[in-house]
């Protein structure tokens, strides 16, 4: 190489380095620092508090206090019983329904699937309140009907018991199992089943020996989510267990923050939840990571449906009965309660009233603030969270820079932090300078952002994986820069994923209670907190009105988001 060509070479090298100002590294670093603070700070303060006493000296006494006092160990045992029962119940009930919907000729299966999925939107605490209206031992509608029919003095079903709590939580966690199993069943390629058929297996035998074993990982994953939900939910146990006089871990942590607050003990009680969650998630990753077991490959194709024959109608009735538990009965109860003078009142004109509606929208001063706060937080978190998740998934899916794995870990890590634990951690972190955010909406925004990030990230990551990198490379080689390509090729292709992520966050924020209950102040109450408060004062009619309005708004916003994104794109998104 002559001196001259060497010089040109170096000159070009310098120019290109400048000309290609690559923003992805600074963005990566900034996102990583933000995420690390967002997640690391609360967890760090939790650990600090758990390991210190009031005067700040290092000690293990918080843990020994918890371990030796039955007031703390009993809730732990209760919680474990609750979790195992809920996980089992959800898997046992939801898996067969998923199979009926995905793999048989059950009538109305599309509607049933939509309804099962829609029951996600129901906040679990609202479901618990609806079941109070239905099955409280004295005033519950179902119990009153039972007494009227049989003349028996005893209630049919008492919701204020551990079995009652298990039942209600299972109602609202079984959709997770359902969706996971139904999707897994949809993805099983027909040729795997055909291979068994051609060897002489009957349809039923194929189902039992091939189809069901293939979805076992999905059933386990669903049961795990149900387990974690049961462990970390605050609303349902607070509504149903406290009146019955028993605690779960989450309600215990909450009570440790009531006057006089014991943050050290609360932090120490929160840590086991965190540890158990991390352990379960690691176990799941191990189980599902075994290659060739979960990855269901092969040629797709319309899965063949099993003809139920004479069992069609009985199966349908069974499914409708199950659906009535999380959906039909509670919503009917809420609607009735919102216009009856008292929940158990007979359905007659003299008991109909607009009193609750009037109270909620005119008299009750907190309604407007709560609606406003909830809406601002939901819109803000959904928008910020989607942008953040988009940046992270772009960096991790498209830029093979060292550090992107760490980013991926950070974005998924909040899955392992139960809402109430995060609430405690955020409370400890932001009640002090330099960021005294407690008492503002910002602290709630941080909480919701942390809680909802993993779902949005996973949604967008899978959207990115569905967009073949060659689609972007084709744009680059034709002369478009990184940003132009992002705007004109990647973004339009990701649109449905982005909208889905936004909606997930929005719904998630509206129904969040466990972190909000630790962080709200008089001016920053959100709807879920107001509903919880009203339940304390026994105002079920007002709750019914608020709850139904909240659901209507959720549906309206989600519908609008989907409509906006669908405008002007009658395009079939099929890979080239």
């Amino acid at each position: 190489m002559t001196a001259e060509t060497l010089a040109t070479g170096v000159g070009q090298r310098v120019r290109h380095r400048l000309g290609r100002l690559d923003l992805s590294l600074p963005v990566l670093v900034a996102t990583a620092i933000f995420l690390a603070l967002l997640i690391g700070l609360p967890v760090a303060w939790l650990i600090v508090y758990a390991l210190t006493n009031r005067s700040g000296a290092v000690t293990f006494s918080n843990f020994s206090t918890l371990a030796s006092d039955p007031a703390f160990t009993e809730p732990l045992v209760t919680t474990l019983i609750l979790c195992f029962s809920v996980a089992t119940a959800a898997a046992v009930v939801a898996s067969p329904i998923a199979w009926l919907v995905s793999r048989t000729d059950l009538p109305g299966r599309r509607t049933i699937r939509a309804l099962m999925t829609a029951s996600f939107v129901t906040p679990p605490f609202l479901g618990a309140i609806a079941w109070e209206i239905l099955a409280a031992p004295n005033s519950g509608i179902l119990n009153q009907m039972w007494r009227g029919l049989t003349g028996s003095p005893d209630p049919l079903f008492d919701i204020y018991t551990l079995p009652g709590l298990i039942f209600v939580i299972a109602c609202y966690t079984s959709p997770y199992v359902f969706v996971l199993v139904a999707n897994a069943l949809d993805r099983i390629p027909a040729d795997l089943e055909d291979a068994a058929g051609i060897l002489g297996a009957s349809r039923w035998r194929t189902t039992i020996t091939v189809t069901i074993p293939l979805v076992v990982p999905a059933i386990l994953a669903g049961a795990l989510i149900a387990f974690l939900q049961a462990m970390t939910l605050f609303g349902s146990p607070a509504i149903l267990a406290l009146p019955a006089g028993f605690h779960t871990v989450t309600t215990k942590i909450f009570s440790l923050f009531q006057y006089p607050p014991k943050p050290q003990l609360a932090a120490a009680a929160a840590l086991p939840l965190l540890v158990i969650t991390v352990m379960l998630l690691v176990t799941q990753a191990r189980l599902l990571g075994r290659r060739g077991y979960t990855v269901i490959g092969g040629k797709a194709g319309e899965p063949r449906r099993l003809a139920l024959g004479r069992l069609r109608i009985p199966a349908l009735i069974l499914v409708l009965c199950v659906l009535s538990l999380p959906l039909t009965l509670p919503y009917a109860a809420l609607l009735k309660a919102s216009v009856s003078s008292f929940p158990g009142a007979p359905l007659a004109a003299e008991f109909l009233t607009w009193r609750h509606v009037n109270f909620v929208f005119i008299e009750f001063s907190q309604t407007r603030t709560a609606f406003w706060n909830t809406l601002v937080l939901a819109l803000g978190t959904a928008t910020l969270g989607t942008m953040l998740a988009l940046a992270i998934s772009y960096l991790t899916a498209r830029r093979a820079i060292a550090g992107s794995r760490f980013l991926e870990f950070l974005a998924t890590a909040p899955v392992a932090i139960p809402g109430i634990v995060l609430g405690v951690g955020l409370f400890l972190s932001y009640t002090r300078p330099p960021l005294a955010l407690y008492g503002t909406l910002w602290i709630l925004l941080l909480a919701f952002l942390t809680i909802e990030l993993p779902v949005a990230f996973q949604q967008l990551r899978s959207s990115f994986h569905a967009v073949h990198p060659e689609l972007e490379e084709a744009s680059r080689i034709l002369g478009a820069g990184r940003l132009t390509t992002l705007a004109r090729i990647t973004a339009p292709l990701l649109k449905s994923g982005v909208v889905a992520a936004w909606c997930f966050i929005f719904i998630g924020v509206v129904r969040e209670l466990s972190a909000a209950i630790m962080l709200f102040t008089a001016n920053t109450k959100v709807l879920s907190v107001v509903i919880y408060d009203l339940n304390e004062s026994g105002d079920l009619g007002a709750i019914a009105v608020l709850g139904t309005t909240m659901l209507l708004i959720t549906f309206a916003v989600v519908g609008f988001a989907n409509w906006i994104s669908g405008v002007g794109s009658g395009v079939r998104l099929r890979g080239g």
Partner: protein
Amino acid sequence: MAHLELRGLSKRYDGNAVVDRIDLTVPPGNLVCLLGPSGCGKTTTLRLVAGFVEPSDGEVRVNDRVLSARGFATPPEQRRMSMIFQSYALWPHMTVADNVAYGLNLRGMPKAEIGRRVAEMLKAVKLGAFAERYPGEMSGGQQQRAALARALIVEPEILLLDEPLSNLDAALREEMRFEIRRLHDAYRYTTVYVTHDQAEAMTTADLIVVMNQGRIEQAGSAEDVYNRPRSTFVAAFLGGANILKGRAIDRARLDVGPAILRCAEPSFTPGGEASLSIRYHEVKVRADGAAGDNRLEARVVRQTFLGSLRDLALELADGTVIRASAPPDLAVPPDARVWVDLPSERCRPLPS
């Protein structure tokens, strides 16, 4: 038209060389095929040329400008190249016309001019009637043509093709082979074409570069690499060849065990281990005969009628099995004794 040059180009991942010190010159207007089995580094070489990958060592030069060197690469969008991808990579949210117009829009060309050129290009690739279709509404062959149109319309300095035909069925693939050569003759862009299919390379290329394990095994015209393979790998990969190993008696003769074979082109080192190659169809099989130069007896192990020829597997006296493509009317039952001729002008010494 651009002059493309690769100098000592290497790409290593975790110390494993995927592309290993490649030197290659593509004269302006030439079509070069990188031919090799999967994993030989041909696609990585193409992506190095395109700028999607930074080299670990060496340079990519176009018209003596350095576009890539160790640790830096001019971004793909500044290279004035275009590329056709294995998946076609047509954007599913745009019509065919929008896909094809994309590159011209980026160049800020007036709308009317773009419309005229797109229509002209779609006609050239026989897609005139499909302008408003979405990619999902077209067959594989039509998508392939649309991808060609999108790449050609920007009048690239260099055109890159990455296994462009591997997703098509056999009949369509043959048709598109000729189509790509026809379009190249019409536009004469400097082109690099990656394939693992020998027939594709032979139909389209001015220069065939056979790659193996990240290195260039041999580069030359189709006749060159086929008739004068310079390595065991090239001989076997292109069209199938028998490789016979043995010890050289002198510069022209090799003792392969059951016989001593003479090569027309003397290049052995006397006394050394060496091998020679002869293609299946160059082995002459006859039912009777007598011992002679480059002629030996063999037993038919298997014979298969393939329509235009008969594929034979023949066992030599020492148990070595060679294959021969004989005329279809030569009917020899299995286990029959036959005579095989290995003509000395077809026995090519391979460097050891």
